[in-house]
């Protein structure tokens, strides 16, 4: 599963990018290896769903310390 990113910029470390993610409670950013991002989509793992929201797990924890975030079903693709 992949999540559409709001922004992808060069990260602090070699091969790293900082990705801004749309969550159901605002924007969070996460630093990941750039191999996890393709065409503005971040590779994520679906954990469960609730209505029009999906709980996804990220490759790493966000700056706020979250590994799992709720996102809109509209923002993910298979």
């Amino acid at each position, binding site marked *: *599963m992949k999540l559409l990113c709001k922004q992808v*910029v060069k990260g*602090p*470390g*070699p*091969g*790293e990018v*900082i990705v*801004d993610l749309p969550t159901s409670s*605002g*924007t*969070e*950013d996460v*630093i*990941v*290896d750039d*191999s*996890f991002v393709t065409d503005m989509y971040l590779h994520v*793992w*679906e*954990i*469960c*769903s*609730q209505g029009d929201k999906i*709980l996804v*797990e990220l*490759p*790493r924890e966000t*700056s*706020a310390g979250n590994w799992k975030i709720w996102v809109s079903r509209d923002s993910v693709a298979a």
Partner: protein
Amino acid sequence: MILTDREIAIALETKQISITPQPPSGCFSPSSIDLSLGDKGRRWRKTPGMQIKPGSPGYNYNGLLHLQDNIDISGHILQPGDFILAWTKELIDIPERSRLAARVEGKSSIARLGVGIHITAPTIHSGFRGVIQLEMFNLGVLDIVLSPGMRICQLIFEQTLGTPEKGYSGIFRDQSANE
């Protein structure tokens, strides 16, 4: 359960884990494998009066990058009290299907000089892929000259009990959060 050098070598051969470039055989110790220092680093710029609130809504790391300067590791002197971010030269890949996770730890050879390589965040989770960030500091009294390729840390692999939830991603897609 911690992997020995033999089990680490087998895990590398069978692609359960990958380390690129793969460290030479001399980098194996009885229950870990040494990694080396990359050639790039970052240093926080002292900014008097600047406060950050990591726990506040909207906090993001991207907004702090302008407070960092790039440094070239080659010949960089880590002075007493210094703190820098650096990265391993090696790219690590630990697929969750491997049922392995790891911890990055320092080496006694540089620890005895007062140099630390992480700050309470040694866990390399199952499913990790990337270079490993090192939070380097010098608590000693001597200037420490860094060089790319120097052995800087060791990776200790441990077996996980089972596969992380994301390894089953999609299998329970019809299950709600309340179930």
